[in-house]
């Protein structure tokens, strides 16, 4: 093989390879060109997109900047050290500075009023933790005047994402602050004015009531004298005007009392059926000549006595019944009491007063519970009234935790209804008609020894004339000191005591009387009070008074008090004896079973024991009291042991049990506990004394008769 041939083949191969390489290169070059054009196209698109976005961004920025600039918001940029980087036009207008006066200054020390610097610092701290917030601060203008602003602020960052500073946004609220201050002052003044108005209303009503009492009293007395027809006509007008005036005053006083929050709910066990029965009977009697028929529908499922403030409930029902009567010239008024639901210790009771009167339009319905609102002027003219009755009723029902509402149709009548949640006691409420009649009895028939302590001649005349009319006589004392002197001279069944008197007032006199060792010391003392405020009544009770009678009072109210505290009617007792001659009925508050067991109807024995007990009980309590205060525990225990059996001997078995417990435990008790026990025990015991005295009186009568 020749070298030439070899070389030729090699050259041939090299040429072929070169061509091939050139082809590949050309193809690659083309490929590269295409890729390049594509890349260029992409770059162009990208650039367009960037431009578009930049433009959009710029537009947005311009838009928002103009929005903010036009929003009366002062913008201020500060760096991380709180030095001002840029102050926007609105901010400069707000503060009166030029931008170049602010740049490089510390924003807080230059602009913020000193006392608000901590607020701003605190805000900055929160913001660095990522919490945002708005504060109200004061800033100082270039001319030294101060501005209230709302300030919010937001961090901004450099290209690398590092915190570069903050933009604070300030909004001038100086005018708003001024307005707030004015409003606050105005509100305070309004509240004070309202308070003064209430106070004025309450005291005026009170001042008006006192002379009114005399006017009404005198008209009652005048009515009982011989009058000719004309005079009687005048007296009727006088009497009814005075009554209207009194009702108005009472209503206003009620409202002001409720408003002042001085009215309290006093829960007592109440026989609801008897109470409502009584109420309807009063209305029946009152309306015997009119054409309104009153009726009561009482749900017999309400079997037990309930805990209820019967005074408030009656006031509401009287209001509603009176209202119904007023707007029903002819037709019927029904009081309906329904048990809606109950659980183990509580009734839900629905009270409804339905009439067939003139009813109300929907418009009138809306306003019916509003103060001083009567349906229209015509109603006021035709039916009278203050427009307060329903307002008072609503507030009283609210106070008792109920809700009052009304449904009505014009021309067909109205139905006022409310529900009360009333806890019930385990006592069954028997409706004893005889009992109800007794309650309606006006005047006690028993002779009573009464003392009236009062310095107002007119009031003395009023009360003594009434008593005289009922064949009761009263001794008069003109002040507390005189009362104490007279007190010791003879036995009294009842004392009426004015509170404010010269020489010695009623509180003091009562305290002295209660401490005087005399059979009269436990006599019921009735406070005569012209004050309707609870505090006075509380003071009276604390001083040792038994009950109270608000001036002005009606003959009925006086009679009620007399009945409540009159000694047992002898003739009534005689009646009982003819019915049941064999056994003596003890007062329900005493343990009858125990007494019968111990004495086996030997009432002479009972009489002797009651006498002895009443004789010694005060003294024994005194000894217990002294031992508790200054004696040893052993001495207290000894006295307790001595006293223990005596209570059950007069039928107060539970006090014997209490004393037994005390005797067993006294050695382990500290002096405070002993003191508390002795005090509450004495109080409880003393409550029994009038009951025992009454009982002793009855036993004597019984023994004398048999």
């Amino acid at each position, binding site marked *: 093989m020749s070298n030439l041939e070899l070389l030729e083949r090699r050259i041939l191969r090299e040429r072929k390879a070169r061509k091939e*390489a050139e082809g590949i290169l050309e193809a690659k070059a083309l490929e590269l060109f295409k890729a390049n054009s594509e890349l260029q196209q992409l770059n162009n698109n990208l650039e367009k997109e960037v431009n578009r976005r930049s433009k959009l961004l710029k537009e947005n920025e311009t838009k928002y900047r103009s929005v903010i600039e036009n929003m009366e918001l002062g913008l201020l940029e500060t760096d991380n050290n709180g030095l001002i980087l840029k102050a926007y036009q609105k901010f400069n207008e707000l503060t009166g500075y030029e931008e170049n006066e602010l740049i490089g200054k510390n924003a807080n020390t230059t602009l913020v009023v000193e006392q608000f610097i901590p607020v701003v610092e605190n805000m900055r701290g929160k913001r660095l933790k990522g919490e945002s917030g708005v504060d109200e601060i004061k800033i100082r203008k270039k001319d030294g005047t101060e501005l209230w602003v709302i300030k919010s602020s937001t961090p901004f960052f450099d290209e690398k994402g590092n915190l570069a500073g903050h933009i604070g946004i300030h909004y001038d609220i100086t005018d708003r602050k001024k307005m707030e201050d004015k409003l606050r002052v105005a509100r305070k003044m309004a509240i004070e004015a309202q308070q003064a108005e209430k106070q004025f209303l309450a005291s005026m009503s009170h001042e008006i009531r006192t002379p009114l009492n005399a006017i009404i009293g005198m008209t009652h007395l005048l009515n009982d004298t011989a009058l000719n027809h004309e005079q009687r006509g005048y007296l009727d007008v006088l009497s009814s005007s005075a009554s209207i005036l009194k009702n108005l005053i009472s209503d206003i006083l009620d409202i002001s009392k409720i408003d002042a929050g001085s009215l309290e709910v006093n829960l007592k066990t109440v026989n609801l059926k008897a109470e409502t029965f009584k109420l309807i009977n009063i209305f029946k009697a009152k309306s015997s000549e009119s054409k309104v028929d009153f009726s009561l529908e009482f749900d017999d499922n309400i079997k037990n006595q309930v805990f209820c403030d019967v005074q408030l409930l009656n006031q509401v029902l009287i209001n509603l019944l009176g209202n119904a009567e007023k707007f029903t010239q002819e037709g019927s008024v029904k009081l309906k009491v329904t048990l809606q639901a109950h659980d183990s210790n509580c009734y839900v009771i629905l009270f409804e007063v339905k009439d067939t009167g003139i009813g109300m339009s929907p418009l009138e319905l809306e306003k019916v519970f509003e103060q001083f609102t009567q349906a229209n002027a015509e109603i006021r003219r035709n039916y009278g009234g203050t427009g307060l009755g329903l307002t008072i009723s609503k507030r009283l029902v609210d106070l008792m935790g109920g809700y009052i509402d009304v449904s009505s149709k014009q021309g067909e009548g109205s139905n006022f209804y409310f529900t009360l949640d009333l806890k019930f006691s385990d006592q069954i409420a028997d409706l004893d008609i005889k009992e109800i009649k007794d309650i309606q009895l006006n005047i006690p028939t028993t002779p009573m020894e009464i003392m009236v302590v009062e310095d107002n001649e007119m009031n003395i005349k009023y009360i003594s004339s009434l008593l005289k009319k009922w064949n009761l006589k009263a001794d008069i004392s003109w002040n507390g000191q005189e009362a104490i002197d007279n007190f010791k001279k003879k036995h009294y069944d009842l004392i009426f005591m004015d509170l404010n008197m010269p020489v010695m007032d009623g509180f003091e006199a009562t305290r002295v009387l209660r401490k005087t060792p005399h059979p009269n010391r436990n006599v019921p003392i009735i406070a005569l009070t012209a004050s309707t405020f609870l505090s006075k009544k509380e003071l009276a009770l604390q001083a040792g008074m038994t009950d109270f009678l608000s001036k002005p009072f009606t003959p009925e109210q006086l009679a009620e008090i007399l009945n409540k505290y009159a000694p047992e009617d002898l003739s009534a007792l005689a009646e009982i004896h003819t019915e049941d001659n064999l056994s003596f009925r003890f007062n329900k508050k005493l343990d009858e079973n125990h007494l019968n067991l111990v004495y086996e109807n030997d009432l002479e024995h009972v009489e002797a024991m009651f006498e002895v007990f009443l004789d010694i009980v005060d003294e024994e309590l005194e000894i217990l009291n002294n031992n508790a205060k200054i004696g040893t525990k052993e001495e207290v225990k000894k006295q307790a042991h001595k006293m223990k059996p005596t209570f059950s001997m007069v039928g107060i078995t539970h006090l014997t049990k209490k004393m037994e417990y005390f005797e067993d435990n006294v050695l382990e008790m500290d002096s405070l506990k002993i003191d508390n026990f002795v005090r509450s025990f004495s109080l409880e015991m003393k409550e029994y004394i009038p009951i025992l005295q009454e009982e002793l009186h009855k036993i004597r009568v019984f023994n004398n008769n048999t």
Partner: protein
Amino acid sequence: MKGIVFSEFFEMVEEKFGYEVVDSIIEKSDLPSGGSYTAIGTYHHSEIVALLMNLSDEVKVDPQTLLKAFGEYLFDTFLKSYPQFFEAQSSAFGFLESIDNHIHIEVRKLYPEATLPRFETKIEGDKLTMVYTSERKMSALAEGLIHKTMHHYNTPFELKKELLNQEGSTVKFQITTL
């Protein structure tokens, strides 16, 4: 197979045995390409096999030895043409690891049609295990390259080679530095 393998193969044969041998093995092998190669072209891998077998016949050296020698020769070409891959690594093991992880990835970007062997590596202390996998069954070429790599990084070593299957498409190299 990339053209550079063929052109470098011919370079080596010509250098060691003269162009007559190159011409002879081209003439003996029945090559679709006619024996003219350009570095940037792509050719069927059976051509290198035919050329290698005919060379072995011609010079009476066994193909595996020839292939390993070719690997060592090829290393110098790579080092000259692509120094950046070597500069990027400071150790032999680091470089060997980077073949699969980095170099072959770059090669594929440039020549998407290229069929490349896989090198799975695992380093445990002073020992590198490298598993060669390729249907070309040219692990001897890889062995030559590995030898030269270790020398390039001045790393004394010991190499154990183990065929993981009979035909030699999967081969395990264990390189321990000394």
